[in-house]
């Protein structure tokens, strides 16, 4: 296969053009890399809900790729008024202040009401029952202190690259948070979004 027209017999047209193309692609990839390098952070992302943007539309219950949504209601006790007539627990106008199912907002019966002392009651979320529908959150946010709010549970979340709920969220409440700050603690105020 010797070719006396070229000084270097190992250099063929194919090899030469291949080398150029390889070089160009390499430069291109490196260019993208350098451009992206300015926009890099050390920690991985996780999805989380900004409770201050959430409008409790109910998509969190249905849109998650998991059958049992990764979004659950959490209770920030430090914000709670411990009301007897809790607007997150009872229907707006309950027949009586009794814990019968007909008086409760939660369709899954996932809120546990415990008497603390007159006239205060403490409300706990049974996470196994909670579907993340946000009905109680709406009641608490609209008429109460807003101590109930929806959060992505990071032990359940599969951390899809494109969160299926985020794609459907009407209020743009889903955000990517760094892995070392996986939750929004509502009583500590507004968390800075993203990095």
């Amino acid at each position, binding site marked *: 296969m010797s070719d006396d027209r070229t000084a270097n017999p190992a250099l063929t047209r194919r090899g030469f053009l291949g080398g150029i193309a390889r070089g160009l692609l390499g430069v291109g990839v490196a260019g993208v890399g350098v451009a992206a390098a300015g926009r890099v952070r050390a920690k991985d992302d996780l999805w989380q809900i900004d409770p201050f943007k959430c409008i409790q539309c109910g998509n969190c219950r249905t849109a998650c790729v998991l059958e049992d949504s990764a979004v659950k209601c959490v*209770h920030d*006790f430090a*914000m709670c008024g411990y009301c007897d007539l809790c607007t997150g627990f009872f229907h707006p106008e309950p027949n009586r202040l009794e814990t019968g199912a007909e008086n409760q907002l939660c369709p899954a019966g996932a809120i546990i009401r415990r008497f603390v002392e007159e006239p205060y009651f403490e409300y706990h979320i049974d996470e196994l029952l909670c579907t993340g529908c946000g009905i109680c959150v709406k009641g608490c946010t609209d008429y109460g202190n807003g101590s109930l709010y929806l959060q992505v549970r990071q*032990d359940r979340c*599969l951390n899809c690259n494109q969160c299926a709920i985020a794609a459907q969220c009407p209020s743009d409440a889903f955000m990517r948070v760094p892995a070392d700050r996986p939750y929004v603690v509502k009583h500590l105020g507004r968390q800075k979004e993203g990095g």
Partner: protein
Amino acid sequence: MSSRRRVVLVAMALLAAAVCAADAWAIERFPPPDFYSGHQLPELDQRPLRLPPWMDRVHVAALATGLALSTWFSLRLRSRTAIRWLAVASLVYFGFYLGGCVCPIGSIQNVTLALADADYTLPVSVVFIFALPVVFALLFGRVFCSGVCPLGAIQDLVLIRPLRVPLWLQSVLGLVPFVYLGAAILMAATDSFFIVCRWDPFVGFFRLDGNLPVMILGGVLLIVSTFVGRPYCRFLCPYGALLGLCSRVAWKHVTITPDECVNCRLCEDACPFGAIRPATTEEDA
């Protein structure tokens, strides 16, 4: 009735005032009580992460190891069996254990978004997940696709009897990945949608949970995979398109050794992916 309406009106006025005064969230309509019984507030229930935060480094290391092994198996050992076992391991780890995300295919969109959107910053691990297979493809061809990608592996494992796709059809369908790649980049750059991830056909199988239309697409592709080799890789995968471009100019590449080839052309029929084209003679060229 009218008195109740008045109460509601007053309540709404108060609420509006409160909203204006206190940035909506800081409302304490009912101040937290001082318990005389000394009741302690329960801790806020915060669950730990599903995977520990240092796992991203493990994933990058696993990806690099997989690529190195795939290169060694295909270029040095030239062993299809070894590649297949590597693919099974990748399927178990990247597919069923990790549950799919973030994968190099989807990472195209993260990189695009990072370049297009000033608010989005890219995790370092995603940079490696995107770039490692590209670098390997520039050096050694598509070793990612052959042995490391769990999506390729699951299709390879169900392939029973590959049919030959006519060359013209293969060429036409082979354009789809580039259209898909363009659409994915456009959608990611406008931060509207990560289409590749939402329509990842096999991630539902990896997680044994997922939404119905995507699971159906995955099911159909798996059925087609039994008689057409790797339909997703060849006719849809946008990352495969990107790696294919790199692979064309790869530094070292799996080759048919010209000195040993007797031109029996059996390999053209044997390749389940239609990757070996009829040799062009000097007259054709």
